[in-house]
């Protein structure tokens, strides 16, 4: 990892100095070792001082480009394989200007979840040492070695692709593990097999945890409207219900439907949810349905193909015809 970070820093400095770009979008250290945050760097000094890349850089930088579009000059952005899908989707929707962006695709071995690490009884994390399948977590209480697969973010465990679909150049040192994109749907299929009552109970217990912080909406690279229905008091869904019922489901149906056919399954929504609600299970249901009803479709795989909801065939299935009646 250290090696990749160094290569990235060198690349950023090179492109800044030769004038290809005038700023860099990357990650900087947060208050703790594990909460790296997206940041803009304007100079060599800033890069040297605070640029970081380690296995706690799960954040997808694509969305930050939307705001950067308004600024002059070309920007360098570092994108992991899955982030490039979000990037393509933004290009497709004319939310970013490709000509003003220089993409360096970077290697990704899967990023880590601090929650999963804490669940292993490790606190006070101050560093990582990575060795293939093994990760040694350094903490103020000593070191502990864990299996990488057990402490990865959900989105990385069910990675859809290790292929960069948009880039100007790549920084890849070690081979990346193969991704199995079909694995993503197993939990959705499990839910589908339940009865309606069971599903309702499952979602009620999950979604009523929602505190309506709107983090899932804010982080989503597919959610880029400047005026959002959830900010409109007229909508009736603008804030948390003042009742301990289950009103938040409406927010979730609306949010997820809005990104149907556009959600690349980047997993950012689930990653940022402070309540650990498995939002990916909602998005993936739509993706699975689209694949089954209208043919395989991966949002962001390219910048030209028609989105499933802006296309049709005369023989599409009828609404509800595939569903079972009863509870």
């Amino acid at each position: 990892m250290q090696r990749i970070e160094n290569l990235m820093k060198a690349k950023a400095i090179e492109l800044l100095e030769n004038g290809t770009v005038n700023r860099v979008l990357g990650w900087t250290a947060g208050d703790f070792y594990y909460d790296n945050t997206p940041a803009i760097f304007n100079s060599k000094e800033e890069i040297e001082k605070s640029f970081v890349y380690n296995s706690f850089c799960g954040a997808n930088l694509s969305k930050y480009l939307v705001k950067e579009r308004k600024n002059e000059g070309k920007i360098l952005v570092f994108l992991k394989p899955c982030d490039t899908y979000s990037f393509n989707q933004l290009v497709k929707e004319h939310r970013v200007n490709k000509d003003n962006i220089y993409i360096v695709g970077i290697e990704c071995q899967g990023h880590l979840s601090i929650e999963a690490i804490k669940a292993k009884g490790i606190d006070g994390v101050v560093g990582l040492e990575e060795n293939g399948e093994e990760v040694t977590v350094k903490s103020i209480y000593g070191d502990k070695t864990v299996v990488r697969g057990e402490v990865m973010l959900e989105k990385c465990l069910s990675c859809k692709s290790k292929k960069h679909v948009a880039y100007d150049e790549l920084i890849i040192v070690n081979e990346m593990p193969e991704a199995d994109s079909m694995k993503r749907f197993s939990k959705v299929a499990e839910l589908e097999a339940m009865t309606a009552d069971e599903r309702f109970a499952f979602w009620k217990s999950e979604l009523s945890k929602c505190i309506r912080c709107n983090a899932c909406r804010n982080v989503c690279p597919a959610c880029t409207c400047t005026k959002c229905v959830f900010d409109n008091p007229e909508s009736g869904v603008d804030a948390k219900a003042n009742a301990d019922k289950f009103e938040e489901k409406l927010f979730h149906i609306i949010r997820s439907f809005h990104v149907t056919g556009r959600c690349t399954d980047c997993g950012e929504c689930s990653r940022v949810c402070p309540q650990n609600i498995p939002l990916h299970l909602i998005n993936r249901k739509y993706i699975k349905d689209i694949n089954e009803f209208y043919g395989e479709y991966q949002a962001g795989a390219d910048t030209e193909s028609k989105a499933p909801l802006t296309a049709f065939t005369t023989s599409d299935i009828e609404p509800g015809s595939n569903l079972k009646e009863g509870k």
Partner: protein
Amino acid sequence: MQEINKEYQPLIVAFCCNWCSYAGADLAGSSRLSYPANVKIIRVPCSCRVNPMFILKAFQRGADGVIMCGCHPGDCHYTTGNYYARRRMTLLFDMLDYLGIEKERTRVEWVSAAEGVKFSNVMNEFAAKICELGENKRLEDLRCKE
């Protein structure tokens, strides 16, 4: 088996396309065919006008069942509107079902301006189904109830 409450009057919202189903409803009326009075029709210029949000909003405001009626596929007055609507509703209904909301509460029917009988049959059938299911508890929203 849930007991059918004779007193219970469900609220049903029907989004009807101006060019077909709405005219179908008219025909049902002028042919003296009856359909339940608790079916509230909302006229839309084309089934494609029905934003999934409308359906949710209807439920949120207390509807017990929502039905969308449009021209038969291929007959949309704007050529393809109902094809798009069909995809949207398929995905939305699937999601509602996935969240455990009774599948029978949502429905799409294609009813032409000449199908007054179909219109009345569909509405009677749908209303009976909703009566059987009872109040919509799973999608209610206290924020919007008076």
